[in-house]
């Protein structure tokens, strides 16, 4: 039977193969300034298929940074997914109509503080988003602890499920959920000032344009008098933040505020992968004069950033004694203040069917967050494996590396049935691991005999065995032994 092709189709995400026009990646669910309260009750990003909500961080210590952090993270995610079509991020803060409707008379911040992930799921369900990103800002001695959380809303379509459909048997599908829908991400600890020590560049966000430059305010309010203007495209030195207002140092000894909408946010660091003969330039455009020809390999701090032609980001970096600008298209990885941004970007790409991009983002996250908890890393390895499988041009391609990813995941959370279910799907779906797949189903049921995915997988195998159709799963394998093994598992575990 060698050489026989087993045809499998992949359906890794609900939106695969449903191209849609690009949409604005960012929206806001509530009023962002005092003059726009009318938008508070507006439904947001209704037509965007894949979206996340960033909830105002809870702030028990009243640092006045809860909203600021949600805004920073919101903007970083937007920067990360700016080239992704039909994806969006909602920022939710204060008491907005949508959330309030769902929560009755509860303040959603109190709700988050007491219910944590369950609350985030409820809000995501109400806003019809696939993800909730939220967090807490806690006073930490003379610094701050910022703890981000990520809650995946699995009710919004089967986007966290890897399903493989058989091309040979019409109704045969093998699927399993990817683990970890409630992730507690690695906290960030830093001084307040350090949190804003990053590149910010002014842009014009006024529909009327900014003929005088971007307005700076004396206080953190639109009602405050204008203190001055800075040209569009200027780098500013941020020192603090208050809601949507970035406090900056201005004219050496003065401070002023600028609305974050007037600022571009860029990564803190960029990573290059062995780029040779890169020309560093004096300015952020290709026509700018060359400064040096260098090899770029590894991490580089972003000294400054700007938008070039076609809104492409350019970064000013230092290599040896040379400092110059390099185009964003040469960058392999961007690092943000929250490493989770790469994870969230990967999930967006996975959900939108950009599996190559998802694979890169998950790899970036794993490289960047080695201290992340075993539970989160295990989940990311599973998403990485699913991306490789779903992104492979043939079923064989990527299977080996995907299995290796799942092996890593199994080391990190060896008692979680989800990883064995997923590995079983890949083993069985690849057509080369019938017995290995069955053993994984057994491992899973050993850990939790009630596990729904494992029960379902076993039921499918029993059905196939009864129909004498096991050969669709295993070329050149001992189908009789497999049938006997399935019988044993059925007797031991399968609920009638």
């Amino acid at each position, binding site marked *: 039977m060698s050489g026989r092709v087993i045809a499998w189709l992949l359906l890794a995400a609900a939106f695969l193969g449903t191209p849609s026009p690009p949409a604005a990646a960012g929206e806001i669910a509530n009023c962002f300034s005092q003059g726009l309260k009318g938008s508070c009750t507006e439904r947001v990003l209704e037509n965007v298929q894949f979206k996340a909500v960033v909830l105002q961080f809870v702030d*028990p*210590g009243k640092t006045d940074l809860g909203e600021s952090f949600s805004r920073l993270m919101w903007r970083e995610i937007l920067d990360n997914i700016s080239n992704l079509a039909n994806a969006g991020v909602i920022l939710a803060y204060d008491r907005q109509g949508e959330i309030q409707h769902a929560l009755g008379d509860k303040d959603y911040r109190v709700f988050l503080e*007491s*219910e*944590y*992930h*369950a609350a985030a799921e409820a809000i995501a369900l109400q806003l019809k988003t696939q993800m909730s990103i939220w967090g*807490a800002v*806690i*006073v*930490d*001695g*003379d*610094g701050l*602890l910022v*703890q981000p*959380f990520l809650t995946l809303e699995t009710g919004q379509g089967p986007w966290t499920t890897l399903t493989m459909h058989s091309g040979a048997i019409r109704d045969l599908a093998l699927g399993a959920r990817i*683990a*970890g*829908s*409630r*992730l*507690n991400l690695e*906290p960030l*600890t830093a001084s307040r000032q350090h949190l804003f020590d990053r590149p910010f560049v002014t842009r014009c966000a006024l529909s009327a344009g900014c003929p005088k430059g971007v307005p700076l305010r004396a206080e953190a309010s639109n009602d405050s008098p204008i203190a001055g203007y800075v040209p569009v495209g200027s780098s500013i030195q941020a020192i603090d933040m208050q809601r949507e207002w970035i406090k900056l140092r201005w004219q050496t000894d003065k401070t002023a505020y600028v609305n974050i909408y007037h600022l571009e946010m860029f990564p803190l660091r960029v990573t290059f992968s062995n780029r040779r003969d890169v020309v560093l330039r004096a300015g952020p455009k290709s026509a700018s004069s060359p400064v040096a020809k260098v090899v770029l390999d590894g991490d580089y701090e972003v000294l400054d950033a700007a938008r070039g032609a076609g809104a492409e980001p350019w970064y000013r970096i230092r290599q040896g004694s040379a400092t110059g600008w390099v185009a964003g298209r040469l960058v392999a990885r961007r690092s943000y203040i929250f490493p989770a941004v790469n994870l969230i970007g990967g999930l967006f790409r996975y959900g939108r069917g950009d599996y190559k991009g998802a694979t890169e983002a998950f790899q970036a996250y794993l490289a960047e967050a080695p201290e992340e*908890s*075993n*539970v989160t890393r295990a989940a990311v390895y599973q998403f990485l494996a699913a991306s490789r499988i779903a992104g492979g041009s043939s079923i064989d391609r990527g299977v080996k590396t995907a299995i290796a990813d799942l092996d890593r995941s199994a*080391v*990190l*959370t*060896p*008692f*979680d*049935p*989800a990883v064995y279910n997923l590995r079983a799907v890949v083993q069985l779906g690849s057509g080369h691991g019938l017995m290995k797949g069955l053993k994984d189903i057994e491992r899973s049921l050993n*850990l*939790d005999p*009630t596990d729904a995915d494992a029960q379902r997988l076993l039921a499918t195998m029993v059905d196939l065995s009864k129909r004498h159709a096991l050969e669709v799963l295993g070329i050149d394998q001992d189908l009789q032994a497999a049938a006997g093994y399935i019988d044993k598992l059925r007797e031991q575990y399968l609920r009638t």
Partner: protein
Amino acid sequence: MRRLSAATAGVLLLLAAGPVSAACSVTGQVKLGELPIADADIATVLGGADPVTRGHSGADGRFSITVEPLPHDMQVLKLVVSKTGHPPVLRLLQKTSGSGCPLSPQEPVALDPGTPPSGTTTGGTATGSGDTEASLCAKRSSLGLTVFIAPYRIYGGGADQAAERLNRDLPEIVHHRILAFESSLAGVVSFPDVSVETICLPLTAAQGERAQEVGHNLNALGVIAGEGELRDNQGKTVIDLVSVFRTMPAYKTYAGVPLSIEDTIPSDSLRPSRIAEQMRDIWGKQIVLAYALQRLASLPASPDPAEIAKLTALMVSLRKTMTADDPLLGQVEQVQALLTDLKAGP
């Protein structure tokens, strides 16, 4: 360097299967400050039974009493020391694993100066010396779902301010981490609202007996205590820090063993988050285990299968978060085995 103390790394103690016949000797000394106290009544209480007077302290304050080994399903004997004019003092004597005998108190039993309340009894709920709610600056937990944190002490010059900040901010961070961990457990719809409170009585990491007493008197789910010492390390000041989490509830022969974590950190990194990070989710896991033990202990003789199923699911969820070398894995698996036994019935 972070390390789990091998001596105390968490495994559930499977205590001796049954009592042994030999009698046990318990010795100690009663003091008021530095003064030995003669003629104090020495009584013991087993579980909810009435106190049994065993003897009196001698002229040097010392006493020696004889008690029976503890039954297989009991692990603590209460020692009550009473003296006219002073409130009674309670000590919890832990059972040794081999003989089943209670351990003698390691420090003198200190009487509290002052007048005892009229009609004070030496019943099982007596509050020990210094363990009044006022003296601990804490309220007894009504539901038994509170973790109490004793103030960390940092020994060595110049760390007072850091210790103060640590003690001020730690409860909030610990509470947050615990709730976040509980909430992240897959398949667990809701977990009871565990609170974190502080007490004002410093406890050293080694004062296990005292911490047990305090936890018992406050009906705690757990007691956290820690301390650190400044020292010079190649020209830099570091703190050797040790934190101990003691789980209070026990079920029959099972009880959590204190989990001790030691760490050496630069003195300028002494922040609550550092301690919380050091614990990662270990404290959250211990809370879930403590809650399971508490629920088990409250089950009737013929427990509702639904309740067992709920606790089983909780343990499955907890184990999902663990690596193969998780220090609490053994405890979870033993509780799982216990639940399996319960499911199977007598």
